[in-house]
């Protein structure tokens, strides 16, 4: 994009190409349906255009997108106008899941965003607990607890589902 000493500028095509999947996954983890996810997806990137002057570097950009995407998704989910009529099964026009993967995604999504987001960031984005704490603005111990509870909850749900 540009060298570190230059002012950080954002190339929209590059940002969308590089981070759209991450943003989409975060949003889908929270909303679980394409209708809401699309709104949150667009809102996240439009906010980036409005706030691009605040972005310092690539790392900051990624953390910023994670935080804003999760906030946008949570806002939509908790909105009184929210019409969550679709489940994961209707959003998979381009994804090819095994039954297990689909079931797992459904279960992750059905967790509270407090659990599902740290799980995603830890296992998929491979952020450390310290980094997750920084991104989500939470204490490291809180993140550890959320991850542990999230895993336990996920196990319980999978066990139930597997019976």
């Amino acid at each position: 994009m540009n060298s570190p000493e230059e002012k950080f500028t954002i190339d929209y095509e590059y940002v969308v190409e590089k981070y759209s999947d991450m943003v989409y996954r975060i949003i889908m983890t929270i909303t679980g349906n394409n209708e809401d996810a699309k709104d949150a997806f667009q809102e996240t990137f439009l906010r980036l255009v409005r706030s691009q002057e605040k972005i310092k570097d690539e790392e900051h950009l990624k953390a910023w997108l994670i935080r804003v995407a999760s906030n946008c998704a949570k806002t939509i989910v908790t909105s009184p106008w929210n019409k969550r009529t679709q489940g994961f099964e209707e959003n998979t026009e381009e994804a090819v899941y095994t039954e297990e993967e689909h079931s797992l995604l459904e279960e992750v999504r059905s967790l509270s965003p407090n659990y599902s987001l740290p799980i995603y960031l830890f296992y998929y984005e491979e952020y450390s607990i310290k980094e997750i704490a920084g991104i989500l603005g939470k204490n490291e111990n809180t993140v550890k607890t959320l991850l542990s509870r999230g895993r336990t909850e996920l196990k319980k749900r999978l066990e139930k589902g597997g019976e």
Partner: protein
Amino acid sequence: MAVEMIKDIENGDMIKTAYDELHAPDSWKQDVILKMKEEEKKNECKKETTQSHRLIRFATGTAILCAAALCLFLILPKGAPITTKMEDGIYYEDIELKNGEIHFVSNRVAISISPNAGAVFSTEQEAEENQTEVLLTESGGMITFEKTQKSKLPEIAESNWSYIGEQPIYVTVLKTEPVRYQAIYETDGETYELIGEGVTQREFIDELYRLVKK
């Protein structure tokens, strides 16, 4: 199946694999890029509007200030002096003007106006007794200096005297067009009268000061 998945959750492999299959639709990407570009255009327009509003406000402010400065420049020298307390050492350290007041006209020092302003005292004198000098000033006005042995001083309260050093002086300003200044003082049995017409206050007070200090 569930048991295997639970095991995989511990090392995150299953989660990773599941999310790997989840991709943002291409149509969303193209759509959002277009919207981002539109949003940027809107932002630029907003910025331009804000800047032009700021420019308009700045220009208006500047115009008001200029108009105010012009008014001060045009009106004040024509006889609407601002009365303020005298500050030592502006032009003459030993001038004490009535009630300690001094008039500033623009950036010039002027003598204060007597309560009897408007009346120029009679200057009827016998020609042979009078000694008159006329001085043309740079501003195109004229200062007439007259020395006579006849007292011209009106009976006025001491508080209305102006002073240059120890010398009491009675000073009036007649607000005619042009403004007419008159200063009368007595020393060693002689009466001195200085009349300035069409002169600046600075010129008048300079000349008065020079004569008293002579």
